[in-house]
């Protein structure tokens, strides 16, 4: 078997496309200059500095200016978890959770789990001050639960009913805040809370509240997804 037969045409095509994209990206990078012309981004930054008092402009775009899009994203995530649960529910009793018989992992998880959960909560709560937010912090919390699954295996019983309850309550809270904004300020997801001072924890109006609800919802959903996916026939 020579080298020519091993390498298929498809992989050559994929690598060609990737290298062409990289060359184009390199050309863009080498000509990269920052322009100070009036663009949509500059306009958004100006509105953000005056209106929302949130230190992280990306967060105020995600949850305030384009909050309705975030509602759609959360709905897409919910539907995908719903489909996975519908497809994999029958295998739940036949398969065991994949786990390692590793002493270092079993002892280390007890120390690491609270620290990971604390870091996830920090990322969620400080979403309007520093990089991060509901989606990232939610997945960090779910990765802490993933370590627990790897260490404990079938001893860790996650109640899916409670997870679904938490998830649906936080989704309902998101929509409730949006409707309250509609009632008070005549704008879906409008701000009805005092704005506060830039850089403080209690600032930005409804933005941290929305991101906390998104964080709870995402962490419950990704934990349920990993619990469905990590099952295996026999531990080897």
């Amino acid at each position, binding site marked *: 078997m020579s080298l020519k037969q091993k*390498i298929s045409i498809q*992989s050559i095509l*994929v*690598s060609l496309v*990737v*290298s062409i994209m*990289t060359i184009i*990206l*390199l050309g863009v*990078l080498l000509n990269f200059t920052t322009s100070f012309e009036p663009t949509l981004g500059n306009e958004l930054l100006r509105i953000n500095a005056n209106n929302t008092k949130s230190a*992280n402009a*990306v*967060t105020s775009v995600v949850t305030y200016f384009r909050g309705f899009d975030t509602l759609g994203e959360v709905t897409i995530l919910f539907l995908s978890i719903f489909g996975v649960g519908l497809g994999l529910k029958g295998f739940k009793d036949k398969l065991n959770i*994949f786990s390692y018989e590793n002493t270092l992992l079993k002892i280390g998880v007890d120390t690491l789990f609270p620290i990971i959960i604390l870091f996830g909560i920090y*990322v969620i709560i400080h979403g309007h001050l520093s*990089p*991060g*937010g509901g*989606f*990232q912090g939610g*997945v*960090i919390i*779910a*990765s802490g639960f*993933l370590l627990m699954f790897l260490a404990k295996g079938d001893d860790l019983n996650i109640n899916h009913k409670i997870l679904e309850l938490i998830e649906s309550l936080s989704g309902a809270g998101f929509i409730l805040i949006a409707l309250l904004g509609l009632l008070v300020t005549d704008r879906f997801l409008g701000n009805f809370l005092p704005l506060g001072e830039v850089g403080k924890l209690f600032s930005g109006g409804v933005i941290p509240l929305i991101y906390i609800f998104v964080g709870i919802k995402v962490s419950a959903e*990704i934990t349920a997804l*990993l619990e469905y*996916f*990590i099952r*295996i*026939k026999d531990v*080897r």
Partner: protein
Amino acid sequence: MIGLVVLAIFISMIILAIFTIFNRDLPHSVILFMGFGLGSVVLFFLFSAPDVALTEAVIGTGASSVVLLVTLLQVRPKERKR
């Protein structure tokens, strides 16, 4: 100086991508893909997009590779080679 770092990361990402494609062992491919994601995390951070970098670090390097590896463990060892 930053430009040189970016170029080095770009070239290593291309090499990692080619290794990911041509590797005959699928679990090795997943590990190489995690390395590719790590390079993109550094690039996102250098291009002043820390939010996207955090998302890529958590999802691309953590959650998705675990899901892929556990799925590959359920497949018979013969089918893990291509």
